[in-house]
């Protein structure tokens, strides 16, 4: 393999790795939006909190990784449950902008909380993935990125299967499609809201651990959520497929522009893409506006 091609392959593989994490974050966002029509801007901060929870359990309390990881994910779930019951449900029926602002505020509160407890300095998570690189063919990839990619792919696969084959997945999609009709079928709609927030925030927290394992954690890592927001707007706010394709696509594009054009082009290209998509397809590449039957 020529050097150029090798370099391209390595960049592409790294892009797929970060793309998988973007897809996972986007999935967390889409899950909550689909079920409850709430735009959760605190998704990035939930992700950050997941990283810090893992730090607290693994480094602070000295728990082994196999215990600290599920605990961090569960912590995200608990946060989701509390937020849904305490902040979102009382806002039911209020204007979407108000609910949206509540999630913005929630994000700031989470950042403040983490800074109070752990300080503002970046931290590294206790290493639970070996540093030895993986070679795919001749291409070199960091093992952490490979692990993150596989974990994200597994979680996404499980989600897709659940949505399709689990009865609760049908309840979730039914609620997303028509809330009043879901009630009329005996579906516990508030219960569905709760579960969507719990699973969504748990997913974000788990993603935060993976992301932190690669690049360390800091109170400002919630910025990652902004890229995920681009993914869901491009992919369609309510489209799981859009989250996956958009996540991987954006990961690749960011990796390619970062390596070939330079880091300063990353945001230009990312947000340029956002604008072009919105002009051509305002509801996202895969978002539904409504089925139109002729």
């Amino acid at each position: 393999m020529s050097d150029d091609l090798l370099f391209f392959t390595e960049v592409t593989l790294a892009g797929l790795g970060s793309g998988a994490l973007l897809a996972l974050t986007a999935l967390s966002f889409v899950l909550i939006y689909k079920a409850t029509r709430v735009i959760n801007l605190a998704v990035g901060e939930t992700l950050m909190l997941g990283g810090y929870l893992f730090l607290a359990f693994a480094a602070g309390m000295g728990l082994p990784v196999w215990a600290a990881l599920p605990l961090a994910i569960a912590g995200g779930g608990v946060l989701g449950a509390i937020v849904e019951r305490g902040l979102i449900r009382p806002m039911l029926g209020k204007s979407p902008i108000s609910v949206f602002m509540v999630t913005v505020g929630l994000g700031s509160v989470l950042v403040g909380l983490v800074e109070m407890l752990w300080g503002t300095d970046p931290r590294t998570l206790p290493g639970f993935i070996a540093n030895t690189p993986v070679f795919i063919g001749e291409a070199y990839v960091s093992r952490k990125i490979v692990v993150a990619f596989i974990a994200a792919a597994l979680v996404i696969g499980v989600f897709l299967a659940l949505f399709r084959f689990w009865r609760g997945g049908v309840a979730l999609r039914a609620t997303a499609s028509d809330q009043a009709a879901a009630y009329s079928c005996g579906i516990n709609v508030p219960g569905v809201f709760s579960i969507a927030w719990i699973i969504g925030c748990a997913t974000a927290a788990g993603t935060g651990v993976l992301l932190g394992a690669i690049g360390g954690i800091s109170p400002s890592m919630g910025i990652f959520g902004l890229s995920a927001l681009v993914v869901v707007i491009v992919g369609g706010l309510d489209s799981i497929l859009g989250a996956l394709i958009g996540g991987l696509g954006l990961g690749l594009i960011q990796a390619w522009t970062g390596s070939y054009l330079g880091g300063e082009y990353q945001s230009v290209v990312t947000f340029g893409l956002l604008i072009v998509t919105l002009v051509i397809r305002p509801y996202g590449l895969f978002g539904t506006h409504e089925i139109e039957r002729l």
Partner: protein
Amino acid sequence: MAQGQDASDPILQVENIEVIYNKAVQALRGLSLSVPKGKVVTLLGSNGAGKSTTLKAISGLLGLEDGALSAGRILFDGQDISRMRPHDLVRAGLFHIMEGRRIFEDLTVEENLTAATFALSGRGVARTPFDLVYDYFPRLHERRHQRAGYMSGGEQQMLAIGRALIAQPKLILLDEPSLGLSPLLVEEIFTIIGRINRQTGVSMLLVEQNANVAMAIAHYGYIMETGKIQLDGPTEKLMHDQDVREFYLGHGGHGGEKSYRNIKHYKRRKRWLS
């Protein structure tokens, strides 16, 4: 005026309910009706009379539209249900087929039926086999893996009724099943609705604009206007009532040329005073 029928064993009793939307607009003003076990009762009335509101008040879906029950009470199977959550009501056996069918468009036919199985949660009954629905509506079987949103209006109405069958209810509230369907399909659907009532013994409260078809399958009828019942009686009797024939069944009562202008004028002068 509405002195109620022989209510020996009603599944549903609505007593003097009032409904207010947005804390300002009163939609129902002291409405009462009752549905005997195993019977089909129809609720007729013109646009905006409050028929759909009545059904939503019973099934608890008013809250979703910022409406609230401000007076009266509703008894289902002898139990006051005015404060029950809508999904708990469904699980207690009261199924509301909403106006406009309201099927889950992004889901397949089969998934729509699966969604209705939540109505059986906590009841300790076996899951209804989907074949029950397919026996009544063979066309749904052909389309079971198809996205429901792409089906015709008639098929969507069949699916909406099919979901009710899955829920094994004691009472079905049916809101305008004829809406937007061709006359032929209306007849087909109403024949099946009548058959479901006879074969499963489920009670029904049927709201319709198309009074002719509704009267054909109902045992008892109520006629409402601006939030109140104005007239009620067994359907055979209503069908021979001069005013009902003229206003709801489309038979001119006064002979001679029929013109919209005359009817409107007449209607404005004489409302349901008797």
